């Protein structure tokens, strides 16, 4: 299951939930899955279903919805509905803009954090982050973009990387800061980085919440 692409799994979620939710609620539920559960094992679907049924009239259909999702997850790609992020409707475009801005916020925040560390330490952290990223099963495009950036060859452009993934990348860097400089310094560097983005790029501020 985890070997399937993000797009295929999103399509499976979309397909599995389709009989139970209207389009708006469906897209919201897919977004919630992307933000919180995209990188979790299938077992976590139970919690996901509990989340989306929390404030709706679907509580008594939880078991049916879960079965439907598990069934969709097992289906062949050709049997699934189209990727809800693949179309050109307004909500998809909005999502695209949001992801791009979250990526931008991520890039600015990372730069603001790195600028607080001296050159030799920064170099060391880049190498360690590079090594840590290779351990993670990141989408190839994102991994390559990060690698190019860490190698100082190109500016960071992550395109439509989901905020949940960016959050994990930021946390990975925070962990490295803790290990190399200590948790007190790591907290300070993160706090100053956030303040820098808030003051220098106020338009990105709303996207910081999804990264922290």
């Amino acid at each position, binding site marked *: 299951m985890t070997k399937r692409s993000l797009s295929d799994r999103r399509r499976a979620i979309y397909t599995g939930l389709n009989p139970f939710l209207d389009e708006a609620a469906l897209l919201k539920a897919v977004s919630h899955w992307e933000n919180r559960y995209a990188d979790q094992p299938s077992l976590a679907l139970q919690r996901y279903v509990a*989340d989306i049924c929390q404030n709706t009239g679907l509580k008594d259909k939880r078991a049916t919805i879960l079965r439907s999702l598990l069934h969709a997850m097992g289906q062949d790609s050709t049997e699934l509905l189209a990727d809800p992020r693949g179309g050109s409707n307004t909500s998809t475009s909005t999502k695209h803009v949001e992801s791009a801005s979250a990526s931008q916020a991520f890039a600015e925040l990372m730069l603001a954090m790195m600028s607080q560390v001296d050159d030799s330490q920064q170099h060391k952290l880049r190498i360690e982050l590079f090594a840590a990223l290779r351990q993670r099963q990141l989408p190839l495009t994102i991994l390559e973009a990060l690698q190019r950036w860490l190698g100082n060859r190109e500016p960071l452009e992550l395109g439509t990387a989901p905020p949940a993934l960016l959050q994990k990348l930021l946390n990975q860097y925070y962990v490295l800061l*803790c*290990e190399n400089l*200590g948790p007190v310094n790591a907290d300070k560097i993160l*706090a100053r980085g956030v303040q820098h983005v808030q003051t220098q790029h106020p338009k990105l501020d709303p996207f910081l919440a999804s990264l922290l």
Partner: protein
Amino acid sequence: MKKMHHTFALSILFFSPFAFAADGDPATDMIWLVTASALVFLMQAGFALLECGMSRSKNALNVVMKNYMDVCLGTLIFWALGYGLMFGSNPSGLIGTDLFLINDSDPSTYGVLLFQTMFAATAVTIASGAMAERTRFDAYLVGALFITAVIYPIFGSWVWNADGWLAKLGFIDFAGSTVVHSVGAWTALAGIIILGPRLGRFDKQGRPRELRGHNLTFVALGGFILWFGWFGFNGGSTLAASTDIGLINLNTQLAAAAGATASMLLAVVMRRPILLTETVNGSIAGLVAITAGCATMLPVYAALTGAIGGVVCTLGAQLMLRMRLDDVVGAVSAHGFAGAWGTLAAGMFYTGNLFDGHLITVQLIGIAACFIWTFCSALIMYFAIDIVMGLRAPAQHEQRGLDLSEHAEIGYPEFDSGNIAYTAARATNMDLR
């Protein structure tokens, strides 16, 4: 049934050699017992303040919540199961078999149950401070439930149940240096081994990094409240309004003062700064150490026991750091190492029978039995919890702080120090599910 409970309560009272030194009025005895229970309950506030103060501000609430909820859940499970396992009929000498869910009983049983519940809550809350800042709330509570329901009462039945095998050997632990404090400390040790240190606590060479607590005034206040509550802890263990309480609480006071003083002097001798946290822990170590023998030794030995307890605590904390074990509040050294020392001291300084080889051997057997049972069972328990539900909070939660990630609250929403990215305003917009 009532008669059996009555007999049982009497046997507990008898077990303490000083319990019936004075033939008090049952009502007066009960007033003292219930008052002492309230004093022991107050120790929960002391633990909460001390542990909260020693944690960073982003984890302050989480530590308090653990203290708050382990006493609540612990009370219920100890009433339902733990008390019976500890004080029920014990033909094997290993485990109690009745007195579960006590409902219709006699007054003395109600009083003893209340008092013992506070003891169980004290034992279980010790681990919360040691494991602070990186333990998942739900996983911690599952562990606390199991400790109160099984680990603590089974060891307690060996010592404080009149038919327990250690009790029959003549093991002395008047108010629980081992039964309460070492049990709490060894479970904490198992917990911190399974958990691992906080992010960045040790550098790559294994040297510890200083992670200062956010409010040392809380630590000092917590120390004072614990000290105050200890008069109920030790004095109440007579289970009666006895004239022996004077000696018991004098010994308690002397040991606490000596523990703090010795800890301070050790810092001077070692040319190290006199830290408040270390000094407060020194007094707590003195209190823990005297708990076993407070009723059976003379004041001069109580002061000596407390002083050595303070030294053991400081050196023990350094040993823990050398072993790369991250005990946030120093609970293992203050409650475990000092508790073991105090239990040994109770055998060494027994009034009228000083340095008796047999007594000392029995004490050593009790100390070892406590460590083996408690540490091994807690290690298995925390390992299982880690496998099934995850004991350690994710790194993302450590980054945010457990206040926000576990409770969606911030300890100090109106004070933005600039050192933490997670302000109250930011938290309002975050998805914390």
